[in-house]
């Protein structure tokens, strides 16, 4: 899948929001299919086989989370959630159900495009197998467990390295505190999210240009973190 020819399915009941999302995406030469309700969305998803799914959580006929769960049974295509709700619990639920990222309404064109691009890039990257990754002035060699910043090796503790790997593996995806805790500390520690905050802070100190205004290790308030290249 190349970014030039993305096929996107948009499931949203509000026609005006549909309209501007559609015209924004079409301006990028992407193909957009629409559905105005959950049932319709599932049918369209089955027949169109989209590269990316954009779902509003507040659908009239079914819960957006249920739709995502259903979609995940047979597709690995990235899912972007549009949430009108400010309740972080709903976003976490959607992410747990298999969504990759979310946008809180209202959102601008820039945010929308950035998320769609990031998700499609992430999907493309998953096919690659190179152990060499880089972001900012940091390069990571996964095969040699080596992290360099500006050419100088950075000493990471095993946990810090494990957390970095978990973030890199799912770069571009919104990860809840629970998911990260489980990936790094194991299933017994999913409630001790303060570890995660401390280690994330240390990673930023070591790898971000300006730790107070990070550009790679992004905090999602009340939800979790997202790593972006």
């Amino acid at each position, binding site marked *: 899948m190349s970014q030039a020819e993305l096929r996107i399915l948009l499931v949203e009941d*509000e026609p*005006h*929001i549909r*309209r*501007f*999302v559609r*015209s*924004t995406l079409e*301006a990028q030469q992407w193909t957009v299919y629409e559905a105005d309700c959950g049932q319709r969305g599932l049918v369209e998803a089955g027949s169109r086989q989209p590269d990316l799914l954009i779902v509003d959580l*507040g659908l009239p006929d079914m819960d957006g989370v249920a739709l995502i769960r259903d979609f995940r049974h047979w597709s690995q295509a990235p899912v972007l959630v549009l949430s*009108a709700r*400010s309740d*972080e619990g709903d976003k976490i639920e959607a992410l747990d159900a298999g969504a990759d990222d979310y946008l809180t*309404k*209202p*959102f*601008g*064109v*820039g945010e*929308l495009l950035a998320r769609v691009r990031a998700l499609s890039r992430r999907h493309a990257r998953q096919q690659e197998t190179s152990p060499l990754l880089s972001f900012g002035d940091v390069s990571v060699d996964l095969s040699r467990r080596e992290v360099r910043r500006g050419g100088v090796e950075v000493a990471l*503790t*095993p*946990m810090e390295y494990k957390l970095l790997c978990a973030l890199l593996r799912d770069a571009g995806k919104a990860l809840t505190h629970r998911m990260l805790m489980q990936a790094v*500390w194991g299933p017994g520690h999913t409630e*001790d*999210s*303060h*570890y995660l*905050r*401390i280690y*994330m*802070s240390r990673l*930023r100190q070591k790898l971000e240009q300006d*730790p*107070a*205004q*990070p550009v790679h290790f*992004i*905090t*999602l*308030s*009340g939800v979790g973190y997202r790593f972006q290249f």
Partner: protein
Amino acid sequence: MKPNQLPSGRRLPMGWRYGLVVIACLLITLLTAPFRDTLELANAVMLFLLVVFLVALKLGRGPAVFAAFLGVALFDFFLVPPHFTFAVSDGVYLITFAVMLAVGLLTTGLTTSLQDETERVRQHERETRGHYELARTLTGAATIAQVEEAVESYAAHQQCRVRCFWLTPARQLDTGDSELLESHLLQMAFNSQQPVRGDADAGTPPLYLPLRAPMGMRGVLAIYPQAISAQDFLAREPLFITLASLLAIAVERLHYVDVARQTEIEINAEKLRSSILAALSHDLRTPLTSLLGMADELAGRPLPEAEREAARLIRDQAGAVHRMMTNLLDMARLQAGKMQLRLEWQLYEDVISTSLQLLKPTLAAHPLTLELAPDLPLLRFDAVLIERVLCNLLENAAKYAPAGSPIRIHAYLEDGFACLAVSDAGPGIDPAHLERLFALFERGEAESSKPGVGLGLGIAKAIAEAHGGSLRLSATPGAGTTACLRLPLGTPPALLTEDEHEPG
């Protein structure tokens, strides 16, 4: 005893009753005298005794005793030979007299005491019925006025007057316009929760009874005797105490009916408020999303610069309306106590980074300085809400400080609090206005062209207080304002070192 409940004969004046006795005895004498030689005198004795019995039954004890003696006298005088003299020819008649008198008096005694007993039972039954009636009325009463009315009419039957003294909203006794002495006695009854007897100078003293209900004191009932003897009044004290407890329970019931009604109203209002909030937040956000998105999309099109500028303005204004709406809804939730804090142990720096990210366009015109003390511990707070606080503080700083002036964020520890301060180099605020600034909808400038409804600080303060912290403003006119969020330091959970965590 109520007069209309007496047997009809006892309603007569005493003189009449004795007159009737004389007439009845004379009648018997007249009736039997013609046959005194042919008739057994025992029959006449029987007739006299019958009169005594009937008199005892109908006219009471005194007339009956009188009838017994009169009967013996008349019997002796007219019927026992020798006639028309009290002299007796046969000593046996003396025994007859004695027996006749004894039987007469005995009958009188038995009859009248039986009647007294019956009367007592009736009286008791009447009282019971009166209590029952009162209890029923009190149970059905829907207002305090109805309760008072029922008690007053009951007391009127007891030849008394009553007055109820209730509680003030502060749960103190409201003695109304009563005199000094009386209000003192009322207070005494209220405080001691015991009956208090009034001043005996003016006839029978009034009685002050505390109205004690299961859940607490409800007031004091004053009972003033009217046409009732001091002795009767005293005898009815248990009755009045019962009355007071009935009254107290009735008033308490009314109180809780009121509380229940009030609670129901509040629950309904709360439901309404919640559904309005939910509807507002959805129904406003949806068109705002379209508006903001469409304007943003328009601004990116190849249009003449003026039109793109207009589109950008629409977008920014839609964003401002959205922030205002979020603030309003949050304030409504906070005020309704509906805000649930999702408290987690975390660092200030996460909130600072997300706030700066969110406000990037707003803060673009100001150079930022960031100072984070190195020893900042984990704090327990709701990330989304504290982010709202910091955003509001930063927005205020950006709004009121001139473009190009620096904004400083400073996080440090002080007196057991973790402080997060935002300072600007704006015009500052008159110290006199500082506290008022927190009031809702109030802004530093009386008439301002700067956007925002002034809710921001009020919400920031409410959120800080919901976390057990505070929001402090300090300002030097002409030299800028500092707003400082202070959150209490807790005891963060232990943090195991890596070796402890993952041995090997």
